[in-house]
């Protein structure tokens, strides 16, 4: 296949490491940043997939905007030179309030980025402190205002729920404040305690006062109701958008399409092969300089692996799982429609609102 493909660029730097974060990010400063950018540019420009058009481009991290605007512009240019894109191609960068100014956002818009994803996470100071975020509440609104001024017409906010000590009232307040900023897109993530994080160690010691499962469910329901009322449609389990503003890049993942990843720790899948780049920036830079392979791990996906992935991802989105691509037995389908977790219509199997809480169970039953 050589059609348009989703391109992901991983920027592995952050001002500091948040307590819940298990992403490939490093609180590193100094020359390593510039060296990594140079290496990434080299990786992109020498890509074996060069020439294949970009369907979408997404800079994630880490905090991409921790880099200079000029560095990001240089990387984007490398991508565009390698993977031709149209004028309408969705080009996103993640960023954090506190790492952006009007000037910087203007430069990014100028460079070609047309979608901005802001990691707001919460509008309660105590949450932000606890999570280890580098920004305050006021800076979220400032960043949104600056983004709009800089010409970003497609803006996402990330919010987290189920935080330690968070109750339903505090969550409602969060939602209200987020909606008051009129984002085009919202991503809502229930806090998951991942191994190898500060939160995991706290959790093991019993230091985290996490909301009960019932509360988590209520928080999610509350969010769906308020988003829908505000005109943001739930189009994926954790994602809401105004019409026309669904994230095309992430949809490629959920539709189990191919994607290419560049940068330290970036993951890509072409055909049945999924590869992950070396994660540590220094190792990555070394390998690029020495002309050695960048793969940290490569996985050959079996037919069953791909099938389970298709199911797991496909049921997350509103358009549903394509039963023509993943044939399922009547018994399997009944096992998820009978509890009221899913419905079928033509070639599509979709989760019901109740089923969104049981997506994993549904995937396991279908697989």
């Amino acid at each position, binding site marked *: 296949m050589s059609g348009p493909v989703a391109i992901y660029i991983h920027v592995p730097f952050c001002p500091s490491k948040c307590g819940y974060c298990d992403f490939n990010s490093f609180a590193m400063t100094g020359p390593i940043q510039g060296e990594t950018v140079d290496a990434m540019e080299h990786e992109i420009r020498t890509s074996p997939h060069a020439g294949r058009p970009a369907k979408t481009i997404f800079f994630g991290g880490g905090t991409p905007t921790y880099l200079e605007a000029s560095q990001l512009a240089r990387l984007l240019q490398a991508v565009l030179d390698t993977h031709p894109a149209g004028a309408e191609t969705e080009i996103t960068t993640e960023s954090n309030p506190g790492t952006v100014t009007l000037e910087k956002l203007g430069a990014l818009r100028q460079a070609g980025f047309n979608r901005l994803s802001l990691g707001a996470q919460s509008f309660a100071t105590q949450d932000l402190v606890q999570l280890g975020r580098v920004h305050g509440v006021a800076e979220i609104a400032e960043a949104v205002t600056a983004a709009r001024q800089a010409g970003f017409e497609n803006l996402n906010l990330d919010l987290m729920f189920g935080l330690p000590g968070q109750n339903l009232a505090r969550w409602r307040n969060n939602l209200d404040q987020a909606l008051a900023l009129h984002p085009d897109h919202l991503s809502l993530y229930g806090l*998951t305690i991942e191994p190898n994080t500060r939160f995991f160690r706290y959790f093991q010691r019993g230091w985290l006062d996490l909301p009960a499962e019932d509360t988590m469910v209520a928080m999610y329901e509350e969010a769906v109701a308020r988003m829908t009322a505000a005109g943001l449609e739930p189009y994926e389990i954790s994602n809401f958008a105004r019409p026309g503003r669904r994230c095309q890049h992430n949809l490629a993942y959920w539709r189990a399409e191919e994607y290419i990843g560049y940068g330290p720790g970036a993951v890509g*899948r072409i055909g049945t092969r999924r590869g992950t780049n070396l994660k540590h920036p220094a190792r990555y830079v070394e390998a690029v300089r020495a002309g050695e392979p960048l793969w940290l791990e490569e996985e050959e996906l079996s037919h069953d692996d791909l099938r*389970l992935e298709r199911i797991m991802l496909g049921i997350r989105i509103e358009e549903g799982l394509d039963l023509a691509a993943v044939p399922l037995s009547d018994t399997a389908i009944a096992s998820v429609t009978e509890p009221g977790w899913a419905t079928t219509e033509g070639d599509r199997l979709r989760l019901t609102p109740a089923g969104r*809480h049981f997506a994993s169970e549904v995937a396991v039953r279908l697989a």
Partner: protein
Amino acid sequence: MDQSLIRNFCIIAHIDHGKSTLADRILEVTGAVRGHAQEQMLDTMDLERERGITIKMTAVRMNFTAKDGKTYQFNLIDTPGHVDFTYEVSRALYACEGALLVVDSTQGVEAQTIANASMAMNQNLAIIPVVNKMDLPHADLEMAKDEIENALMIDASEAIPCSAKSGMGITDILEAVVERIPPPTGDKEASLRALIFDSHFDTYQGAVAYVRVVDGEVKPGDKIRMMSTGKTFDVDEVGVFRPRLERGQALRTGEVGFITGAIKTIGDAAVGDTVTSAENSAVEPLPGYRKAKPMVFCGLYPTDSDQYADLREAIEKLQLNDSSLQFEPETSAALGFGFRCGFLGLLHMEIARERLEREFNLDLILTAPSVDYQVYMNDGSMLHISNPSELPSPNHIQRIEEPMVDATIMVPNDYVGAVMTLCQDRRGVYKKTEYPSQTRCLIYYSLPLGEILLDFFDKLKSSTRGYASLDYEFSGYQDSDLVKVDILLNGDQVDALSFIVNKQFAYYRGKAIVEQLRKVVPRQQYEVKIQAAIGSKIISADVIKPFRKNVIAKCYGGDVSRKRKLLEKQKKGKKRMKNIGSIEVPQEAFLSVLRVAE
């Protein structure tokens, strides 16, 4: 071979006291095996080697040229080292004239050694005490000798210090075998009488019987008769193990070896049976034959009910090699079609389960083990009940008897209190205490076998920091005030979870098993009520709250593989569960009753 040059002997030892290593050294010194090529020769099955215990014995023939210049024929007969196999041990002892009694120089005598040594003495075997592991720095020869004298009433003045590991003392042991163990005394001219002390099933040869020829001789072509069943067979082959199989002309009076003869089932080569000549039958069989008597019963069900036929085939195959395994089809409302199986004991049960799962690739559910109860009905009839769910309604029952054992526990003095508390808690009746040495004592209790099936041995070990050793033997049936406790999931009785318990423990055990189930049954889509009941009376109840969500918060390109693996794990977990009604119950739930006795 001149009968006077034959020596038949076995080794009696506690687990870990070095029996297998000693056997290996003896094989080496006599030249039967070269070097340390294969450790622990006598443990033939992988499973035995993994568990470090011998569950099937074998006999090995060796030649030994003694100081007197004569070459002797040694037959070393291996004996199982676990209380489940006491009867097999007694038959192996019967095939011998002498025994090496191995005691660890750092541990002293253990309960099992005492039991087996007493059995050997009762059969008038010559006993050669051997104090092993003398190479260890804290070896204590005098302590070990004291215990041998006091606990076993055996003269330890001629005990042989040895180290099976280093080879020290091995030749002394072999000379002692020649000098102190008498040759066999059978009648060469009499009709054939051979004792079957072990057997195994070979796919090509059929059942292979290991025998000790007591009188007469047997050779290929002979027509033989099994005296317990009267069945006759034509002998195909006779031979010995050295330790490799070696075919021979004949097995003569006093000799040990094997017989094959198209014996189709292992039940026709029953341990303890006497082989005689079909044409010229002996009048009296050798004493001591009895049918293998299972003591422990449980239900065996396939997790996936489609595997029922496979399970039947697997159990049948396993039984070919293990005549003490008994089974009959059984149906459970909760688990579907399966088998009620009888075992010699818990270890035997565990081994059978492992072999079925491993060798036949089955996923099994074992219900909690039960003993065989004798239920006397009001109409005067008596029922054997080994499946608790089949216990008739109390108003038809006059009384119930449960099997009892005489237990012997060897323990350091410091732990006497702990042992007595444990036995008391398990309805034990104290009999006596003996003091074979200054530091350790022997405690005798009468205990219900059903209580030993629970985690008695684990508790005994943990409350004595691993120092206690246990031996027991069946002593008969006794009246007991027993009730059946049923377990209900969402109001439906789960027959496979019912258990029979003494009335005074019913509330406690009912509550404990409900708690245990709450822990092991995963949360479901619906609320699950767990109840314990005696008849219609609920004695304990708890609730498993339904899961409210099971969803991955977010899933992007970098997360896909990890999340997929997470789901694969969930799926695998589900496959090992049994659906009872709409409730998914994991395998371990059915053994909950084992883990709740305090």
